[in-house]
């Protein structure tokens, strides 16, 4: 059992390594992509600098905290796309029947598919997040917490993408819908939760995973509490389990590439 886990992990790490190596073939493009993404994230500081001229706190956040929020969103999104970029294009694989290659290998299908691609610019996202947390208060504890929540955030956004992506096993049209849902999560993730009230707030802490992905963690980086931490961890685990279950249930409906042939 333990060797099986070890072997599985080894294959996943090899895949991730090879993905990144492939991106590095063109060094100039590789570095430009990373730098541009960092610049891209930083450019939004302009927007916030202007808004904070109007009021000193926005939704209970100071400028520094909004930076941290942006940083955590970027690094979670980044980590998720470095390791599991393929999850975000899962509908394309399902609809065009491209899962065959992983189904004939004696390893976990889901992990095999997930780790089969990377996105270079995501490295820029991750670096930006780490840069931000270091610049907004260089304390070891803060940075460690930030890294922990980067991991949980990455797990949550990946699981959510897997969940909405797996709907393509049943409905072909859900591809765009799934992408829109991901956009929703990301759009919310870069604005302070304090500006939302009532039903919106409730949704953000339940079926829209933004709350557990970034809001709750950002609060805890300034103000640690164990209950909140357990909630975030529990949410990440629960969402992952549900997403994986939906994926595997959907896999039974998978109809491989030759469906296209049958359509003639």
């Amino acid at each position: 059992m333990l060797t099986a886990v070890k072997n599985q992990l080894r294959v996943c790490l090899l895949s991730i390594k090879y993905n990144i190596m492939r991106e590095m073939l063109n060094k100039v493009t590789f570095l430009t992509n990373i730098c541009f993404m960092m610049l891209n994230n930083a450019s939004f500081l302009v927007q916030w600098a202007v808004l904070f001229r109007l009021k000193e706190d926005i939704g209970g956040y100071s400028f520094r905290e909004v930076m941290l929020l942006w940083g955590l969103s970027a690094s979670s999104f980044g980590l998720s796309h470095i390791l599991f970029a393929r999850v975000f294009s899962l509908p394309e694989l399902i609809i065009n029947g491209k899962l065959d290659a992983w189904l004939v290998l004696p390893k976990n299908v889901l992990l095999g598919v997930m780790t089969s691609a990377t996105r270079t610019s995501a490295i820029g996202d991750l670096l930006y997040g780490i840069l931000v947390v270091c610049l907004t208060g260089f304390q070891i504890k803060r940075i460690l917490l930030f890294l922990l929540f980067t991991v949980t955030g990455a797990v949550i956004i990946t699981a959510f993408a897997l969940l909405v992506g797996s709907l393509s096993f049943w409905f072909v049209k859900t591809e765009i819908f799934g992408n829109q849902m991901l956009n929703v999560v990301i759009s919310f993730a870069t604005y302070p939760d304090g500006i939302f009230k009532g039903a919106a707030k409730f949704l953000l802490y339940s079926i829209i995973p933004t709350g557990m992905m970034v809001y709750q963690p950002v609060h805890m980086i300034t103000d640690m509490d164990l209950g909140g931490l357990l909630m975030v961890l529990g949410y990440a685990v629960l969402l992952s389990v549900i997403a994986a279950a939906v994926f595997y249930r959907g896999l039974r409906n998978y109809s491989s590439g030759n469906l296209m042939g049958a359509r003639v």
Partner: protein
Amino acid sequence: MNVIEAENLSKTFRVKQKEKGMKGSIRAVFKPKTEEIKAVNGVSFAVEEGEALAFIGPNGAGKSTTIKMLTGILYPDGGRVQVLGIDPTKKRKQLAYQIGTVFGQKEQLWTHLTPYDNFQFFGAIYDIPDRETEKRIGELTEIFELSAFLNTPVRNLSLGQRIRCEIAASLIHRPKVLFLDEPTIGLDPVVKENIRFLIRQMNREFHTTIFLTSHDIGDIEKLCRRVIIVNSGQIVLDDSMEHLKFADASLEDIIMRVYREKGKEEPAL
């Protein structure tokens, strides 16, 4: 001993019908019309250990669907299937350790890595100890004559070299059954001949069972000792190559005739 047993195997696809025009598109959103297509319709056969079988049929006859059910890619809707005594739907991973697959143009190799690194990667996938992987790479390099480009990135190889590497990679774990779906498609005659020779050698030396689909009469004639022809999801012929060769027509003529006969009864998909 039977390595493959299929009994009454069936698979139905539900295909959406789209009507033409704006009205049709709108109607399709609310009330999608679907049509059922029986890709595989009650197929039964058994393959013995060490056999070399050609599983052929016209496009859309259900060969790929069958091969995909045998390898655990697709779930059958009905019937029973066992490969090496294992049910692919229940123990997919366990089966995967013992079978090899080469799916035509679909590439399983990392194109930016060398064949050597690729073999190492597949060694890790099949849990082969490093030293053992090294030994097998040596063997395969010799059999498939890969030494000249073992350390050249796959993307720089010719198609023939690449296919040789693909097949070698699918043999790294010494599978007991090798599934080949159009392995020689797009290759020149010399390379084709070369690949056929290698597959035949695998079959003879290691007693590897060969399950081949191909549109290439040469592949079938030179590799296989038994032929199954499917059409419209059903088996229409199952005979030994020897027997077919004694018939008064060439293999090609026989195949053409069988394809056509079936075509008259039921319109092709």
